[in-house]
């Protein structure tokens, strides 16, 4: 990793050579403490980087065609190409809904009130439900004879049951159920990082609640919102089991992870599967990178009371 343990190169100028090098390294933060990252970093190199590079290399060795054969195949087959659209058309609305709903709710929930902690705890529950239970629950609850449709019927809101499962809507619902609490809790913690005295200061300067939100809270929250969006997006982008279970995996919810999975584990074409995985990673990182770039152009400093 670093040259922490390499033998010191001769430094003719200063008489005590060894301490000088140790000192020079220590100055830059390199000392024996750094050895502590080594095991973890090596584990990730071996279990994450190496396989990833191996997959990359494999993706350039297609069974048919040239080096880029599998990439060409992905983009020339309309069915697989459409999986990009399917993925984005799920991930972006899901993230927008999750983050969008989080803002007003966390804005209201900032003050302390009895039961707040319980409320927050309740919101954590969906994160632990697991995809299968969520999917089963969605199938049953939102299904044609589920409580949701029965209630609509009872209230006279829908003549025939709405089709909310085994299609795009089903997957979107599952992304919201698992993603909204996550987005909310993140937004909540970012928002509570903004010192209340800032809004108070704005009030004493004549700003009404909308102006306070518009000019003070929102700009300070925005970087946090982008991070939240990124992380919700990452979760939604990787959607896999629920796209199979409550979606329409051969149609509108044929997302890119299913494409990759089928290539590798149903068609036994690892090269293609790896190529798909690489395409997936690049697309995801491109979005995250763009968001990070946008974020870096915003104010990102402290949001405490002090400047």
């Amino acid at each position, binding site marked *: 990793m670093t040259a922490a343990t390499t033998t010191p190169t001769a430094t003719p100028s200063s008489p005590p050579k060894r301490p000088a090098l140790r000192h020079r390294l220590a100055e830059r*933060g390199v000392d024996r403490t750094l050895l502590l990252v080594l095991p973890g970093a090596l584990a990730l190199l071996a279990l994450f980087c190496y396989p990833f590079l191996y997959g990359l290399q494999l993706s350039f060795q297609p069974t048919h065609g040239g080096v880029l054969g599998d990439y060409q195949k992905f983009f020339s087959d309309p069915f697989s190409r459409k999986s990009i659209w399917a993925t984005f058309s799920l991930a972006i609305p899901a993230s927008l809904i999750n983050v969008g709903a989080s803002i007003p709710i966390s804005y209201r929930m900032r003050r302390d009130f009895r039961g707040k902690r319980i409320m927050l705890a309740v919101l954590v529950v969906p994160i*632990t439900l*697991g995809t299968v239970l969520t999917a089963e629950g969605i199938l049953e609850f939102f299904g044609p004879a589920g409580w949701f449709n029965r209630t609509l019927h009872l209230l006279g809101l829908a003549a025939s049951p709405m089709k909310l499962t085994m299609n795009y809507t089903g997957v979107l619902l599952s992304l919201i159920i698992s993603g909204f609490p996550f987005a909310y809790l993140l937004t909540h913690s970012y928002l509570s990082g903004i010192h209340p005295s800032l809004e108070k200061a704005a009030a004493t300067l004549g700003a009404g609640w909308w102006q306070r939100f518009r000019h003070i809270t929102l700009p300070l929250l925005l970087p946090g919102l982008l991070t939240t969006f990124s992380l919700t997006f990452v979760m939604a982008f990787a959607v896999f089991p629920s796209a199979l279970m409550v979606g329409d995996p051969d149609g509108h919810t044929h997302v890119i992870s299913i494409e990759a999975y089928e290539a590798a584990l149903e068609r036994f074409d690892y090269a293609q599967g790896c190529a798909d995985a690489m395409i997936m990673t690049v697309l995801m990182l491109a979005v995250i990178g763009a968001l990070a770039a946008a974020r870096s152009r915003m104010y990102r400093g402290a949001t405490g009371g002090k400047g």
Partner: protein
Amino acid sequence: MSASTAAVADAVDTAAAGRRRLALRPGTWVTWGVLTFFLLNLTGVIATVLLNSFGSRWFDSWLPGGWTSHWYSDAWKEFSLGRVLGVTLEVTLLVVAISLILGVPAAYALARRDFPGKRALNLLFVLPILVPPIAYGIPLATMLYKVHLAGTLTGVVLANLVPSIPFVVFTMTPFIEQIDPRIEAAARVCGAKTPTVLGRILAPLLLPGMLAAGILVLVRTFGMFELTFLTSGPTSQTLVVTLFSAVNSAGIRSTQSIDAMAVVYTGSMAVLLLIALRFVNPTQLVARSAD
């Protein structure tokens, strides 16, 4: 709920404050409405599964037509839940232990030192959380096949370490940063050598953090579908994979016994969650300081 927020301090309020609250009402109503709607649906989703798992049959009606618990014994037998839970426990505990052993020291060094290459190292620790598990799981599974680890418990544990180590690192970082380095310096000046500083000072102070990180990794590994699915074999499946296979594999299966298994799954998760919430704030379950 909105009543209680307002009530506490402002019980004896002036007219003005009252007017101001009135002006905020529509927004407040919508907000609480959305939240209530969400929670109602969430409750519905969970409750239907729970009720169904105890229902002898449930057709076109609000509630099941009869009650039974035999789906649980059926599921237990049919899906060999005893064995599966054992494997799940073994996998998660191993992952927790190993990722703590590897992650905590790394987190310590990253939190305490600034050094050349730290950004790259940070990236190494962030990427496994960002990259979709399917994307690196497929090549990882391929590699594990090559080294004869695919399908084994070891393989599953190794795969699950990939997101867990970074997770430990990022959960631990704020806990470590909270500890003033001068406390370590103080211990040294008092005559403590490195092992003593680690054992008597740092370890007790980091214990809450390690518990939090450990439980969070436990919860996540318990629920990690993709990686386990890609790398497990018949003897190394965890509950979530068994559950998925039960839904997806061929054959006629009563949804009730699948739901029973899902309830077992969620019940175990809920217990873990309750334990976790004793040590961490709910927002800490998702938020960390490192981004």
